[in-house]
């Protein structure tokens, strides 16, 4: 095990100690989205038969919160450690690259799931969700959190300043999450944009996650699982390679 367990513990403790900002705030944001969008669109939009717009929206919002917070956890921890210089405490010990990666990704998943679950729990009394296939829900929550946690590791390693990280977040993560079908089904898009959406891995995370609740989705959950697993595998190899060559961490 070596340093892995401690690094994971430290990364979890780090967000848990400030859970007001890292957990409560994003849950509140998601609830505001839900309140406003469902109020405005409930009577105008129906994506699947027998599924109200508010029900349709909720899993998407929960997943979006999960993904954004998984990304935020690993990326902000790394950039903070780099800027303050205390990353040295993680670079001096005999922690292997795989352990380093796994600890950051698992902590990111943990924060993502706490936030995502928080969104669902806070709305239990408001919105009726069928929870048809919990295993799909779990699989996409874990894989989605893992991918975004790994993206956060890459962004945190790459960025040298907070504004570079903000740019990564605003120009890559935000567009990908908002254009992934959180608020709509991609079938309601013009054909060209439907095609474009199929190149967005986050679309598959949301679609597969939603399938777990309603048993219906835009593409087969198996296709989504394949795409998402493939993305995670590729990203893992890439990140491990960055860590091995010491990119921006070891001069």
């Amino acid at each position, binding site marked *: *095990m*070596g*340093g892995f*367990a*401690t*690094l994971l*513990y*430290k990364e979890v*403790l*780090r967000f848990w*100690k400030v859970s007001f900002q890292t957990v409560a705030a994003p849950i509140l944001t998601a609830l505001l989205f839900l309140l406003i969008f469902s109020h405005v669109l409930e009577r105008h939009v129906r994506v699947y038969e027998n599924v109200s717009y508010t029900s349709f929206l909720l899993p998407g919002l929960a997943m979006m919160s999960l993904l954004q917070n998984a990304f935020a956890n690993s990326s902000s921890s790394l950039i903070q*450690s780099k800027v*303050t*210089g*205390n990353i*040295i*405490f*993680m*670079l*001096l*010990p*005999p*922690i*292997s690259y795989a352990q380093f990666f796994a600890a950051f990704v698992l902590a990111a998943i943990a924060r993502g799931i706490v936030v995502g679950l928080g969104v669902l729990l806070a709305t239990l009394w408001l919105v009726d969700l069928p929870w048809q296939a919990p295993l799909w829900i779990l699989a996409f929550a874990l894989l989605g959190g893992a991918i975004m946690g790994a993206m956060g590791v890459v962004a945190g390693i790459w960025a040298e300043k907070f504004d570079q990280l903000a740019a990564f977040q605003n120009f890559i993560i935000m567009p990908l999450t908002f254009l992934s079908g959180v608020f709509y089904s991609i079938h309601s898009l013009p054909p060209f944009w439907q095609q474009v959406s199929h190149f967005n891995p986050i679309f598959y995370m949301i679609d597969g996650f939603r399938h777990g609740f309603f048993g219906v989705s835009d593409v087969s959950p198996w296709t989504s699982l394949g795409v998402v697993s493939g993305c995670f595998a590729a990203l893992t190899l890439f990140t491990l390679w960055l860590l091995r060559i*010491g990119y921006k961490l*070891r*001069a």
Partner: protein
Amino acid sequence: MGPAIRIEGVTKRFGSVLALGGIDLEVAQGEFFGLLGPNGAGKTTLISALAGLVRPDAGRLAVMGHDVASDYRAARRLLGVVPQELVFDPFFTVRETLRIQSGYFGIHDNSDWIGEILENLDLTEKANTNMRQLSGGMKRRVLVAQALVHRPSVIVLDEPTAGVDVELRQALWGFIRRLNRDGHTIVLTTHYLEEAESLCGRIAMLKQGRIVALDTTANLLQRFSGHSLRLRLGAGTALPESLRARVSAGPGGEHVLALGSCGEIELALACLREAGCSVEDIEIGKPDLEEVFLRVMERG
């Protein structure tokens, strides 16, 4: 018994700056070794290369026989580094910081040793204080403590006493000396040359990425410094001709006569007496590392 540290042909460039220009160095187990040099000489870069924080362009480094690149986990387990920069994690208290650092080395029950370190560095009272609330000197102590949690065989301290009060310096050196007596190898960089002189058995001096002097402290002192006689003469007296060639002007306008050995004092005094010089003040200067350092840097 192999060396504690072996460095062979290490070079490192940062853009156009040659930070290390081919360093070869061995430090034996149990040594108290000093690494001296002006700012920018490459001391921190060399230490970072040893710790795996910097990748050299060429050459190899090993800690207790373990290559820092190919066998990095074994090498890092045996090495403790006190970094030059005053860094800390504001999320944690002193004790949490030390527990976490122990855990990074795979040590999960370390409270006895942590207690001992805290005691020795006079940190016990601050154990449950958040890092953010500590003064600079206290943070520096925690940095030292963090480097020691895994009882490393080789301890490297990069300017650990910069900006630290006298009291801590005494306590710190007492503790580090004890670790050295217990068999730990110590490598130290410092700008306080009197500190290096009293602590280090052997010293390397770096200038622009190269080692320009490497010897025991005693040999360096003997070779580049020596005893001297500082004289202040009465008004209107001139130095006798026979001494003039070996005399230089001291900082306070006094005459400084370099002595080859202590025995030369008698001869010098005899010369002065024969010439009828009136001596107002006289003082014997001991060899010191500051002088060695200045001479080596001029020459190197």
